[in-house]
């Protein structure tokens, strides 16, 4: 007797804990093995690019907070850099140092979230996530100190930052810097040698360097595949060329590399924050600019190495007070191009970890 078999299509999401937001996958399974994947986007589409066209250049900063809500500082930074490039100005040195410091704190917070949720997806339910949340909370407290908000910071401005560092900030930062390296070590010790973790990540979800480059993948996912490309080193912006840090590179491009690489990047970010604190120059934190900015007609592209990859803003100005066009190059969205190829042939349980290892944020995917 022969049993008749046929592939079954399963709908996963948009409301599903492992999709980290509202993401939907239509997956065709042969038994437990993935045959085909179709990602469905748009559940969080708010039309940020259109909304930007009817706001002034300063008001658009508030929209960028709401793109990647796990890393609002770097979104701020990419946008203000694009406007500054459009206007041909540069923030004063102190402003740049503060911005880089905030961006690196943000990177630590974002990677902590990725690690916490990645482990949660693999069944380490609750505990690691609570640890990473605890560490992230310290960073959000620092943000609250400088700008009054934890998530929707809107801290960076064209020409600098909104306010100078308050006097209580530096002692709080020192307390944070004293304990975070130990906490990162704890996380690594707790998990990196774990047999279950290694079985579920080593050689799972392979992404070759060739496929990553051709698929426009950027950020940790690209570096885990062995491509040495970090905008902070390859095309330094702000004051990154005055700082010492290393760019960790992976070898195999599997889940494990993408996970461990982020642990290492957090350590490098701690180094950068420490240097910023020590080298912090005096002087103004912000340029004196008019309330309504009118950049000259033209276009400019500003980009930063955000925690998820290259985040860029392509701005076109017609000389008025609002951007004529504000196009966002979203790393989360573009990194998903390779998702289908990465998933086919793996099992349902691996799908969750492979997707988690890419670390996408749906606010930034759908915009």
């Amino acid at each position: 007797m022969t049993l008749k078999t046929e592939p079954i299509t399963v709908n996963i999401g948009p409301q599903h804990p492992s999709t980290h937001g509202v993401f939907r996958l239509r997956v065709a399974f042969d038994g437990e093995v993935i045959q085909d994947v179709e990602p469905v986007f748009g559940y969080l589409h708010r039309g940020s690019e259109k909304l930007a066209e009817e706001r002034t250049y300063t008001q658009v900063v508030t929209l960028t907070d709401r793109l990647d809500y796990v890393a609002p500082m770097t979104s701020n930074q990419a946008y203000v850099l694009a406007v500054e490039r459009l206007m041909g100005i540069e923030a004063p040195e102190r402003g740049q140092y503060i911005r880089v410091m905030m961006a690196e704190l943000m990177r630590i917070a974002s990677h902590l979230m990725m690690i916490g949720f990645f482990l949660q997806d693999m069944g380490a339910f609750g505990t690691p996530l609570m640890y990473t949340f605890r560490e992230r909370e310290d960073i959000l407290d620092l943000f609250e100190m400088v700008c009054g908000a934890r998530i929707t910071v809107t801290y960076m401005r064209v020409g600098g930052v909104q306010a100078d560092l308050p006097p209580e900030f530096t002692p709080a930062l020192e307390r944070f810097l004293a304990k975070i390296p130990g906490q990162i070590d704890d996380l690594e010790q707790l998990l990196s040698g774990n047999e279950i973790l290694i079985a579920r990540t080593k050689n799972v979800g392979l992404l070759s360097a060739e496929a990553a480059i051709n698929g426009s993948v950027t950020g940790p996912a690209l570096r885990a595949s062995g491509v040495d490309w970090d905008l902070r080193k390859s095309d330094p912006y702000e004051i990154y060329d005055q700082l010492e840090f290393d760019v960790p590179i992976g070898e195999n491009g599997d889940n494990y590399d993408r996970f461990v690489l982020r642990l290492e990047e957090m350590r490098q970010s701690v180094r950068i924050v420490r240097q910023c604190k020590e080298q912090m120059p005096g002087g103004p934190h912000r340029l004196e600019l008019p309330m309504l900015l009118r950049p000259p007609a033209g276009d400019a592209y500003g980009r930063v190495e955000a925690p998820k990859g290259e985040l860029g803003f392509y701005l076109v100005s017609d000389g008025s007070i609002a951007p004529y066009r504000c196009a966002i190059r979203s790393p989360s969205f573009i990194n998903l191009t390779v998702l289908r190829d990465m998933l086919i042939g793996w099992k349902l349980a691996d799908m969750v970890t492979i997707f988690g290892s890419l670390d996408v944020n749906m606010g930034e995917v759908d915009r």
Partner: protein
Amino acid sequence: MTRRYPADDLAGKIRTRFPDAVADTAPAELYLERDRLRDVCEFLRDDEALDFRALVALNAVDYVDYFEVVYRLVSYRHNHATVLKVRVYERDEPSVPSVTSVWKGAELQEREVYDLMGVGFEGHPNLKRVFLWEGFEGHPLRRDFLLQRP
């Protein structure tokens, strides 16, 4: 620092292979003829000295008289970059050739441009809306699409 590949040099290299492909040059960018776009992109990717193997960003701008599609290319090996622009003067059904066969990274980005700006891509394997739903009328990022206040 990522070096901006000089546009004149690049235009010269392209013209030796495809004499009619370059429409215009600006200091930092190239304007290409839409019909030769895919050939030129393939050449830019495969040439050893150019090595533009990554399409970093693909955006479109509506200038009312024409649409401009902007391609940002990077070579990770040589650390240089360039910008290509293609102008489309049609408004009802504008389209440019798809570059998905050259860079897979164009796949979702072209779908996004099609969805929000309404510029089609000939030869795209799966060209349909990505953020908005099928049946949505119009393309919101066009300048003549006005936001409605409640």
